[in-house]
């Protein structure tokens, strides 16, 4: 589980741009911080920050 640490504004969705769509969807992009152990298992100990378009994310209740 990651935590949103920054909102980068809105950007055209890379998946649509890569397919050459004339009007790519535009979505907010978030900087999401994960504890490394949550991504790769132990030992972890560092942070990984990834930049993700909104449709890549699922809300954690």
């Amino acid at each position: 589980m990651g935590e949103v640490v920054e909102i980068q504004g809105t950007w055209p969705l890379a998946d649509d741009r890569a397919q050459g769509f004339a009007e790519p969807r535009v979505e907010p992009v978030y900087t999401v911080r994960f504890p490394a152990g949550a991504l790769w298992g132990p030992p972890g100990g560092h942070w990984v920050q990834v930049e993700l378009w909104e449709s890549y994310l699922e809300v954690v209740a």
Partner: protein
Amino acid sequence: MSGHHSDSEIAVRVRRLEERLIDAGLTSDEQLDGIIGQILSGSPANGARVVARAWVDPAFRGRLLADANQALGELDLSMSTGPQTQRFTVVENTPTVHNVLVCTLCSCYPIGLLGPSPSWYKSEAYRARVVREPRAVLAEFGLELPAETEIVVHDTSAESRHMVLPLRPEGTAGLGEADLSALVTREGLIGTAAV
């Protein structure tokens, strides 16, 4: 590629591809030269200049960390040289936090401020390993961080580009901006070395 006359196999292939694209009306010599010029105008000296200013001017440092795109304008630099303006952030190393950059998907990199990226930055080994075991990777670069230093790996996976603001080295209190910027290395700006 006007001005280049290499007969190497790759150069011949690139020229042929350029000719086909120009003949098809998809690009022009002027457009290609413009892009090449933009890439060649990038240099780690630009990033070093930004770092040196941040070291000597705390108010600039504050503006840089808050809105790096805006702050670059004060040094006549910008992130608008590519097809779309890129968002730019500067991440600051502190005595307790060390930042390092990667693009796990490909090779995204702030070319305008750091110049063309080193080949290892694009290697699968660096991209795969630095997110999993940054401490070990940094040690292989010769950077042994204290065990208590927190490491943050920044994956350039969208439309932002980043640069590390390294710690100012000890014993440089008397140096001016130009001398300070000469100390800043490309690896220091990526986070695989200290300055």
